[in-house]
């Protein structure tokens, strides 16, 4: 195993690879540290990865399990669980054309088992939790994570608890409850849910809260997005990444994935410019970026992008640092821009994303219009979730009409106004 220890990102204190997430000395976050010195020669490593499974476990050398991947001879975790990752990287020429860019790609992570990137982090956290002997999964969720935990728990046969804000979109509630989890709706916002779960994790230390006591392992799962993007670009780096920011974990771990591969020579070049995307109604990181601050003031979220509605982002300081050191930025867009972003992506790529993807697409548009992006740059837009999760966001965004089942009725309607409304030429 290449994972060696947990290390505090603030003070460097070291801990064993257990269910720990906070440094006892300074309260800083713990992160998995690896020793990659035994990975062997670069081209052989590439071949080994390419011959691997078509899921995140092809990158097992860079993930924090003690044994082999689940379901492949790891006696502690015989059930494989849901296969996650290896989602399409799609060239988005029509989207690029609409924005005056020539090299735009969409990493469509809605193509995961529960239709969001959260399947990646849950796969890693739940596998490590099983290795550590936990028999119950839990999470504090804005919705997508709840879907992923409930489904993965069902697949591996563990009981689970999913805590969500009570005002969540109905689609996310239904698509969680169906898996037979203990779904707990908390009267409060996500930050209230998170506070409750942080307290609960102190009292229920036999539960694996994937994004609390298992958070160092959980967060590692997001690196696989970077690995896949690089491999799908034929072992090259993109010039720029545009990704959403809620807690900042995904955003920072995508960069960490690229950095790990740069460090060991699997990739060459420089870290992509990192652009973060938030909704104006919950933009503590974008606000701190603009103010030149290195820490975020918490906010009370009020946005349709509920999956990004974290007012007190745990990795905010690291997201700020990353955007600055890569010459990137963190921008925010309004709810109307989010709705327009969903429609723009749908009508130029055929990919229907949830509100978080609307945020990301709208920020890409904003950057292009501001002239921040060279038209020839290779830009990857990270789409983290499926539009079927937030259907209300597109209600009323197009014309509908009914006709009688006769030719006359159709012709009359078609004469009245064109039946097909094309938003983009």
């Amino acid at each position, binding site marked *: 195993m290449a994972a060696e220890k947990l290390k505090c990102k603030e003070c460097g204190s070291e801990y064993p690879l257990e269910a720990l997430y906070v440094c006892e000395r*300074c309260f800083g976050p713990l992160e998995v540290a690896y020793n990659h010195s035994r990975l062997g020669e670069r081209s052989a490593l590439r071949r080994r990865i390419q011959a691997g499974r078509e899921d995140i476990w092809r990158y097992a050398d860079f993930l924090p399990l003690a044994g082999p991947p689940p379901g492949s001879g790891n006696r502690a975790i015989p059930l494989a669980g849901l296969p996650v990752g290896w989602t399409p990287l799609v060239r988005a020429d029509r989207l690029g054309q609409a924005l005056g860019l020539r090299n735009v790609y969409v990493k469509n992570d809605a193509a995961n088992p529960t239709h969001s990137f959260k399947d990646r982090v849950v796969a890693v956290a739940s596998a490590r939790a099983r290795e550590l002997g936990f028999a119950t999964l839990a999470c504090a969720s804005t919705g997508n994570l709840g879907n992923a935990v409930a489904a993965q728990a069902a697949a591996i046969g563990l009981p689970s608890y999913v805590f969500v804000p009570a005002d969540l979109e109905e689609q996310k509630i239904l698509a969680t409850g169906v898996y037979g989890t203990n779904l707990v709706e908390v009267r409060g916002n996500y930050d209230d849910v998170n506070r409750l779960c942080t307290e609960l994790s102190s009292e229920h230390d036999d539960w694996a809260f994937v994004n609390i006591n298992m958070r160092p392992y959980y967060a590692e799962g997001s690196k696989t997005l970077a690995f896949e993007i690089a491999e799908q670009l034929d072992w090259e780096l993109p010039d720029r990444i545009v990704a959403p920011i809620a807690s900042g974990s995904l955003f920072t771990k995508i960069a960490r994935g690229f950095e790990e591969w740069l460090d060991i020579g699997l990739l060459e070049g420089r870290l992509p410019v990192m652009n973060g995307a938030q909704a104006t109604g919950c933009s503590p990181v974008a606000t701190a970026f603009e103010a030149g601050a290195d820490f975020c003031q918490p906010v009370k979220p009020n946005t349709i992008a509920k999956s990004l509605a974290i007012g007190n982002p*745990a990795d905010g300081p690291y997201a700020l640092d990353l955007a600055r050191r890569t010459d990137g930025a963190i921008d925010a867009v309004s709810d109307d821009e989010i709705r327009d972003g969903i429609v723009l992506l749908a009508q130029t790529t055929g990919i229907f994303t949830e509100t978080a993807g609307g945020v990301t697409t709208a920020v890409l548009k904003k950057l292009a219009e501001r002239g921040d992006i060279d038209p020839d740059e290779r830009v990857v837009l990270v789409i983290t979730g499926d539009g079927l999760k937030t259907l209300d966001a597109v209600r009323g965004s197009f014309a509908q009409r009914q006709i009688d089942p006769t030719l006359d009725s159709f012709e009359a309607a078609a004469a009245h106004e064109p039946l097909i409304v094309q938003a983009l030429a």
Partner: protein
Amino acid sequence: MTVAVKIPVTLRSATEGESRVLVEGATVAEVLDALFERFGELRDRISDEGGSLRRFVNVFVGAEDIRFLEGLETPVADGSELTILPAVAGG
């Protein structure tokens, strides 16, 4: 003003295992000072050299983050509850 302070599991090695400690104080700062008087090791763990809270420490009075109130100067009523929690959870 007697205030109950809830101690997260991460800090209990500095409070002789206690998860809930009763101390006196009229503001969050006074409550924390009283707590540090009793458990000296806590001071270094959750506050920096200048006496501010470290950046990954969240403190709540009741259910509210003190950053939405008056920070360390937030007044605390008799019988209220103060919760110290790590900020790195969630997401």
